[in-house]
């Protein structure tokens, strides 16, 4: 396949960037999107150019490190995948592909396609945990039976990989899906209920402080989320927060 890539290049956080066009051929449909970028970079290095910086690590869709806004969609046109799982068979010979970083005020660009998502970490620091010491001197794991449906829903919320596609895709750069997934995971479990009110207040407070936008329920995040985190979680957080703030 022959493709034209239009890639955002930005030297560092301070300088302004621009879209630069790169032609590329010999792309195999079996390649992953990142392998295609590897090939591009190999060529750039051999030519003496600066390779395109992009985040990636596990390349199997679980670490949440890879990002990229491809042809107007977070993680590209496929559904239920991260960029590293996106394969070139999703594109046609001769296609032009826009590749941009995940954009949000709370995700400043570090270089090219690499962004700083530490705002997500700070939200977690504010309350994304259950305050239990790791001494191991706790009750036996089977002491509290947990309704399987709740346990499963908690798990579904917990599968969030923190990639930031929800923010990137949201027209408001809202982090609600991410935050609500964590809030929900714990709110659905008996051991998490103890400090549920403080957790949701603190996490939302931090979320607002980071400069994310507000949720307007467009539902785009759910569609683009590689792990299919449900909007139900956002509603649950709305509920939790409402109750916590009027209590």
């Amino acid at each position: 396949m022959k493709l034209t890539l239009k890639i955002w290049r930005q030297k560092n956080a301070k300088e302004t960037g621009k879209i630069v066009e790169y032609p590329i051929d010999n792309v195999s449909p079996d390649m992953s999107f990142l392998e295609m970028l590897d090939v591009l970079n190999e060529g750039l290095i051999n030519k003496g150019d600066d390779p395109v910086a992009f985040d990636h690590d596990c390349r199997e869709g679980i670490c949440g490190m890879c990002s990229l806004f491809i042809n107007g969609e977070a993680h590209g046109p496929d559904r239920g995948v991260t960029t590293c799982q996106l394969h070139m068979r999703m594109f046609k010979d001769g296609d032009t592909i826009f590749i941009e970083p995940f954009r949000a005020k709370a995700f400043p660009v570090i270089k090219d396609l690499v962004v700083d998502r530490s705002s997500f970490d700070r939200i977690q620091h504010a309350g994304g945990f259950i305050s239990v010491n790791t001494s191991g001197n706790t009750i036996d794991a089977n002491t509290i039976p947990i309704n399987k449906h709740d346990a499963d829903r908690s798990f579904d919320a917990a599968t969030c990989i923190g990639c930031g596609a929800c923010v990137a895709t949201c027209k408001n750069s809202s982090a609600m899906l991410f935050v609500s997934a964590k809030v929900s995971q714990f709110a659905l479990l008996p051991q998490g209920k103890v400090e549920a009110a403080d957790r949701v207040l603190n996490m939302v407070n931090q979320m607002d402080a980071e400069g994310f936008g507000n949720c307007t329920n467009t539902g785009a995040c759910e569609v683009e989320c590689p792990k299919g985190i449900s909007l139900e979680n956002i509603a649950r957080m709305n509920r939790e927060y409402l109750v916590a703030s009027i209590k």
Partner: protein
Amino acid sequence: MSLDSKIPAGPISDKWTDYKNHINLVNPANKRNIDIIVVGTGLAGGSAAATLAELGYNVKAFCFQDSPRRAHSIAAQGGINAAKNYQGDGDSTFRLFYDTVKGGDYRAREANVHRLAEVSANIIDQCVAQGVPLAREYGGLLDNRSFGGTLVSRTFYAKGQTGQQLLLGAYSAMNRQIGRGKIKMHNRHEMLDLVIVNGKARGIIARNLVTGEIERHSAHAVVIASGGYGNVFFLSTNAMGSNATAAWKIHKKGAFFANPCYTQIHPTCIPVSGDHQSKLTLMSESLRNDGRIWVPKSLEDAKAIREGKKKPTDLSEAERDYYLERRYPSFGNLVPRDIASRAAKERCDAGFGVNKTGEAVYLDFAAAIERYGKDQARIKHLDENDMKLVKKLGTEVVANKYGNLFQMYEKIVDENPYETPMMIYPAVHYTMGGTWVDYNLMTTIPGCFSIGESNFSDHGANRLGASALMQGLADGYFVLPYTIGDYLAPDIKTGKISTDLPEFVEAENNVREQLNKFINNNGTHSVDHFHKKLGKIMWDKVGMARNAKGLTEAIDEIAALREEFYRDVKVPGTLDSFNQELEKAMRVADFLELGELFAKDALHRNESCGGHFREEYQTPEGEAQRDDENFAYVAAWEYKGKPSEAVLHKEPLVFDNVKLVQRSYK
């Protein structure tokens, strides 16, 4: 220097308890004055950082990713073992201990493994308390599944994402401490050297990967939790960034490196599709619970399939060779990983491989779909002879159990595994070898600890499925916090370590020099070019089956490649900016040394055991032939300037509680 493993005296089941009762403690007020550096934030590093901070130490944690949550522990799919015996199927601490020692082909340290089995149950309690959503049954209690190499169901899991959930648990514990200011987190930082002051590990030199700044960090102890070195093969199931640099740097500073040749090749990975391949994707071993592995019985059929003239579904039962069930009737498809991997290689080498490259075997769910379908039909009082219905019902059950894995497979391979068998092939997955540590998890450098996959640890020559998560968390939550206290107890009066000491200056200068050398090298080939070459040598000659000739060649070839690398590598960009090529260059430089030591270790070990298979040493049936008389020891290598000059130290392995037998899964 002789190796002292510091194993406490007494009966094996009392060692850990006795040890804990007699160690030195640091009082809470003094812990405030002690700094600890933790490098790596996976299960081991993350849990250690959280626990140490909770105890009151000042922790500085480092990871090269943009967040601790991204450490590659997250990719572990299958589960975590614990001797809970919730299923009442006869499990016990001893049995877990025994299975692990046996599974490791009798090359692990008994005392460490027993401690691991003892604390395993605690891990599950801990994780549940932390809100890790482990799988449950309808009654609300925890569910278990069985895994390769064991006869009990002791594996706890969270669908196919156990590693992710456990890591997020450790990450949440870290977050709590970061929020309280007890952990100072350094994301996007890479440790590039260890600083030793007066014989003790006192700090590290790290590069801020965003700004390129070289930083000095001091502490009273340094904990390395940087994972394994599987990426020495270039293609592996490890993350792209997984590297051995921290472990290798401490090796060069005096930490012995043990058993580098013990590598686990995972049997169920998605086969290589072409030269562009950057990484291999693992399919959880749990698939072997229901999938049957086979290749065609005849070479003609295999050839026809490779050429696309026949489809796997065209072959009748009689034309298929379920070689694991044939060779190992009692464990069948659930034999340990090393055995399953070698058996696949054996069939493919004999010409029975089934994809274009000839390096793939089938993992077939048709039988499971039919079995489950019939069960469901019976349960629902439907016609169990209606094959269409049975297939539909069975597919639902299989989708429920493995849906996410099947979906992942389909995305990568573009084939529907419900309709046609999956193709799998072994890939490098885990490295049992690593820095040598004593019972306290301390390396041969005082004050420098190594935990999780980065130490040579508890798995001997082969790791059983669902044991890596167990070991990582055991080390971090429950072992290191005790042992490090014993070491730090005399350090309470030391006070802050200055980073202006000449040792820091020198280490920083060395790092800077190496980085500058790469930047100014002006070679002609990219870092990946060399990494791929190294990987090919490793896979061809130091991979699943090794022999003296190949290993000797590999040693020479790697040494030559290393020289070429330093001469000809091209690293664009600058030192003081975000520079991913420079990061890679530093890592590959270390792999190029480690690979050679790896081959040297494999060459010296004239036996086959677990993940180390020497073609010269096999039973007539092709099974690994151990040599307990001459090789029942840990090979710990001391760095002497070059891998080829490394000096071997032996830690004899004594087995008082397990009888050494030929490992049999027949």
